[in-house]
């Protein structure tokens, strides 16, 4: 027998109370871990998603540039347009590798929105060289052809549409031939329809209009200089991907502030709960501690025992909390996706070993803080005071 086994046996004496205290710690740690894990996962996925766009700058119509850029990335539609001539102005600016016009449109079929990108396929090959296409990409002058994202071609993992299928497309349901299906990218592209830009302009009746110009620069370090040049073009506003990320992170940050407040309150409540439980337990065991002192325990021994009990509770709560957070991350992620302003594709919560270690350390830290007072109090009981109630 050692102090740890003695502490475990003591905790098992009041199982219900011990389990409830451990649960209190577990919930606090689960929320803490989920938030931290979401924080790092979200930033990573968002940054990855923006990188995968292959775009450094978006030129958008004047108005709300950040909102417009966010919608463009997400596949939303904005009611403002640039004239096609803007692309010639943009291409005149030094340092631009690719400047690709795009028209984003949306139509409803069977009650569901269908997002359409009118693109220049040659530009897209340069912007997104990682694209793999089953079948082929269309050429710019082809009519009534489209390429679709993998998720649109499959239903529950089984093929729903194949290359060569003719499908109704656009608000009028014009027959279009699927010439290619994108291999899965893990990004929003898996959800989109891609058609040649002139076809999109015709089908949606937007002659010579574009929603945005996606720009890739030759040298990333020159982005701000190039942005400055682009800003001089009339009716054009530019947004860099770094700015978009900053804006989205700011929006998410305000949601996080609220969550952090909730966590701090949860941790305080759980800490007060632990201290209360331990003090109750110390009070109930006063005579027992007196007996221990009578049979040779020092004040330090008693304090040590109470301290180990605290650490067992908080470490147990920490481990349970991490398990809840890791195994329940799907549920938690679903909930978080509903409340954050922009959620990138992919896993937002990935349990990183460093974070697991940090949360475990934190739970043990709570134990240290909560255990000190009850441990000191129990160690200071004099054996006489402890047993007195039993004596004359």
């Amino acid at each position, binding site marked *: *027998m*050692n*102090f740890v086994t*003695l502490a475990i*046996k*003591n905790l*098992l*004496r009041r199982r219900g109370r011990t389990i409830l205290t451990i649960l209190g710690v577990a919930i606090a740690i689960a929320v803490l871990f989920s938030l931290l894990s979401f924080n790092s996962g979200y930033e990573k996925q968002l940054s990855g998603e923006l990188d995968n766009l292959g775009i450094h700058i978006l030129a958008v119509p004047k108005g709300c540039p950040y909102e417009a850029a966010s919608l463009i990335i997400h596949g939303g539609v904005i009611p403002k347009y640039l004239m096609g001539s803007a692309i010639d102005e943009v291409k005149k600016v030094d340092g631009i590798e690719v400047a690709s016009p795009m028209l984003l449109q949306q139509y409803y079929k069977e009650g569901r929105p269908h997002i359409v990108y009118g693109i220049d396929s040659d530009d897209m090959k340069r912007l997104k060289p990682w694209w793999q296409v089953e079948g082929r990409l269309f050429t710019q002058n082809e009519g009534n052809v489209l390429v679709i994202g993998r998720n649109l071609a499959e239903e529950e993992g089984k093929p729903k549409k194949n290359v060569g299928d003719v499908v109704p497309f656009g608000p009028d349901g014009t027959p279009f031939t699927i010439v290619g299906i994108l291999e899965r990218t893990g990004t929003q592209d898996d959800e989109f329809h891609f058609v040649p830009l002139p076809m999109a302009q015709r089908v949606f009746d937007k002659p010579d209009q574009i929603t945005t110009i996606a720009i890739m620069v030759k040298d990333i370090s020159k982005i701000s200089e190039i942005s400055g040049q682009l800003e001089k073009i009339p009716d054009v506003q530019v947004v860099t991907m770094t700015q978009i990320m900053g804006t989205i992170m700011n929006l998410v940050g305000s949601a996080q502030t609220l969550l952090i407040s909730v966590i701090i309150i949860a941790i305080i409540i759980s800490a007060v709960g632990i201290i209360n439980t331990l003090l109750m337990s110390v009070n109930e065991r006063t*005579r*027992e501690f*007196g*007996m*221990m*002192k*009578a*049979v*040779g*325990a*020092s*004040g330090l*021994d008693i304090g040590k025992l109470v301290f180990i009990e605290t650490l067992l509770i908080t470490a147990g709560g920490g481990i349970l909390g991490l398990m809840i957070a890791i195994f329940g991350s799907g549920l938690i992620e679903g909930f978080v996706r509903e409340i954050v302003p922009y959620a990138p594709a992919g896993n937002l919560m990935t349990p990183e070993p460093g974070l697991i270690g940090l949360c475990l350390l934190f739970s043990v830290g709570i134990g240290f803080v909560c255990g000190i007072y009850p441990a000191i109090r129990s160690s200071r009981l*004099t*054996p*006489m005071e402890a*047993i007195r109630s*039993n*004596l*004359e």
Partner: protein
Amino acid sequence: MKKEEVISAKELTKIYRRGSEEIHALNDVSFAIRKGEFVAVVGPSGSGKTTMLNLIGCLDTPTRGSLRLNGTEISGLKEKDLVKLRRENIGFVFQQFFLLPTLTVRENIELPLLFNRKDGYKSKIDEIIGLVGLKARAEHLPSQLSGGEMQRVAIGRALVNEPKIILADEPTGNLDSATALKIFELFRNLNSQGLTLIIVSHNLELAKIAHRKIYLRDGQVV
């Protein structure tokens, strides 16, 4: 040849304070107990018996006077030194047993060794379990034992540190008379092996088997 004194008290006084009130639990008490003696401390409730036992057991320190335990003066000793003195000399037996309910008989008896940092005492524990007659009950929990058996465990726990003196506070107070008799026998047996026994008891039968009685009344030896 006279046996050496293991306990010697001179003008021992213990005063408790309750608010502004002073309670003289022991008043100028002097006595001596020799090695191997079996002493019963008797007297009415409130006469100071338990206070005397606690002072001898280093659970408390006197307000005035001198108390020597195995030649060491305990007045003015620090808690750390009292703990050491207690570990090396004293085994305590309480009226209410104070067994830990989640520990088995063996583990309860082993408990003092945990605080004394002694390992590898399995054979010693087995010997004590045999001595107190609980071989068949070694792995049982206190809730599975009778009152007499629980007190035997408490006695075993008091013996495991190999103390020189056993202090027992009303050890048969919670037991029926038949069980109390068996505990008396156990005490007599321990005393015959050379242990010094000091027992506080209202039980006159138990007091009778002691070599000597110390009568206390109103905090004084009478």
